[in-house]
């Protein structure tokens, strides 16, 4: 069965239903009772997370609690990790994504991912975007040019690189590389973006630029962003979810609108975590 048929049409003018966030909450990513092991070791337990369509959800928690692992569950990158196995339910964009038979290629095209360390391919800037586009069937030069230009403009990199599109991507600065990676993901016209501490490997100025970019994309993509930095979560997030370790495995202790969670956390650990972080 061709899963592409279930995709919302992705042409630029017809941005999908996930946009109308104010017409009532729609969840784009939903996990139910999701748990994950690396070999024998459990790293996530009983996670029921909802990520609202078109909003920015920050995933916070101490390091090693399994935030990156949870992101990897959402786009099934776990399939690539030796020893990783996941139980529970996962729906992405209304489609069950937790089956062995799920078309993970289609899933990953709808859900882009940005890694902690910028990982441009050892190709030219142009080919960093063109390579995945070609693999997804975009062959015509005109379409490639349009998609690449649009994506680079979207991340504000066009002005900086338009004269050297055939230079090596690895010659860009760290912040530029990370934006290139975002452009690479956006060129595939995803519906959601998963970002794993996208700013933590960048210098302060680059952090500002990337944060601004993320804020600018609000409303157009469903974004789930892992961050260590609570100030950043405050600045960016509409919703916040907190993972906390219990018996060595991460559990979801609280999730909700950012304002509620920061100002009147329900769980004691949330309050303690926010307090400790402030000191």
């Amino acid at each position, binding site marked *: 069965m061709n899963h592409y048929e279930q995709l919302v049409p992705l042409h630029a003018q017809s941005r999908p239903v996930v946009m109308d966030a104010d017409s009532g909450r729609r969840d784009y990513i939903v996990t139910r009772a999701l748990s994950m092991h690396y070999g024998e070791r459990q790293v996530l337990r009983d996670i029921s997370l909802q990520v609202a369509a078109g909003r920015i959800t920050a995933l916070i928690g101490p390091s090693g609690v399994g935030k990156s692992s949870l992101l990897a569950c959402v*786009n099934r*990158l776990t*399939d*690539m990790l*030796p*020893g990783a196995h996941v139980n529970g339910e996962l729906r992405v964009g209304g489609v069950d994504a937790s089956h062995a038979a799920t078309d*993970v*290629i*289609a*899933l*990953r*095209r709808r859900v*882009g*991912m940005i*890694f902690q*360390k910028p*990982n441009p*391919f*050892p*190709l*030219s800037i142009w*080919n960093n975007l063109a*390579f*995945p586009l070609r*693999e*997804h069937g975009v062959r015509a030069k005109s379409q490639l040019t349009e998609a690449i230009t649009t994506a680079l403009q979207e991340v504000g990199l066009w002005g900086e690189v338009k004269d050297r599109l055939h230079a090596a991507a690895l010659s860009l600065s760290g912040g530029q590389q990370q934006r290139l*990676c975002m452009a*690479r*993901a956006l060129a*595939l016209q995803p519906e959601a973006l998963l970002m794993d501490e996208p700013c933590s490997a960048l210098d302060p100025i680059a952090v500002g630029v990337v944060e601004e970019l993320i804020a600018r994309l609000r409303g157009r993509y469903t974004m789930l962003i892992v961050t260590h930095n609570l100030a950043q979560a405050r600045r960016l997030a509409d919703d916040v979810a907190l993972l906390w370790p219990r018996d060595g495995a991460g559990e979801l202790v609280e999730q909700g609108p950012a304002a509620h969670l920061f100002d009147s956390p329900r769980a004691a650990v949330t309050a303690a975590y926010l307090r400790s972080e402030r000191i």
Partner: protein
Amino acid sequence: MVRAAQRNPSANSVSDRIAGKSLTLAALLVAALILWVVVDVLWQGAGRLSWEFVTTAPSDVGRAGGIAPMLVATMLILAVCLAAATPMAIATAIWLAEFAAAGRALRLSLDVLAGMPSIVFGLFGYVFFVHMLGLGFSILAGGLTLACMVLPVVTRACEESLRALPDGYRLGCAALGVSRAATLWRLQLPAAMPGLAVGIVLGIGRALAETAALLYTSGYVDRMPTSFSDSGRALSIHIFDMSMNVPGGDRGAYGTALVLLVMLIGINAVVFAISTWWSETRLEQA
């Protein structure tokens, strides 16, 4: 580092000096031994070497004439060997590096195979390729026997070079919904190309140097081969035959040995150049 300790004069300095002296002596001895062999081949081989030597057929059972048929036979055997071994080695290396989480049995079997004496491969090739598959004493049988022999070396080197790539390539591509086939073909293999070339060069070195495995597979015939099913005498076999079976064949043997050494060194250089070029253009057009 130990080197840093050199500057601290201490109670150890006497034993240090003795140790340093004797290790230096050992290294000198080793270098001298190796140079002895190399210079001997250069010295005695250079006198025999000429354009005529590499372009004419031998006469007077090798005492006169050249080694053209052996050069051609060697190249043909090498071509068969690489054509068979390279794709299999790279496929197995990809399997080991990318798909087989454990692969312990396969790795162990490769390691054991890598240590097998070449005469054992010769026996195997003699039974399986020469007789069972009916290839007879032929370049095809010799090349395929050598392919079995170099497979483990090439495979392990290719596996290492694939493993050395950053995980960001695999995971980055996967996260973009790029198939593993495309990731491998467009990104990982080109990026690993220099390492793969090292593996292939190792294989070439082994194959060119091999004698025992060819004795009973590709045979002795010193005529110019006209097809892959002809018997062909490899350079190494020619060296052996000239020095052992032909009185007064030493000079020819040395000339051949020098040609073989030059080929080994030359092929190394060429393959490295090609692989660098390939990996660059490949990555350009991904």
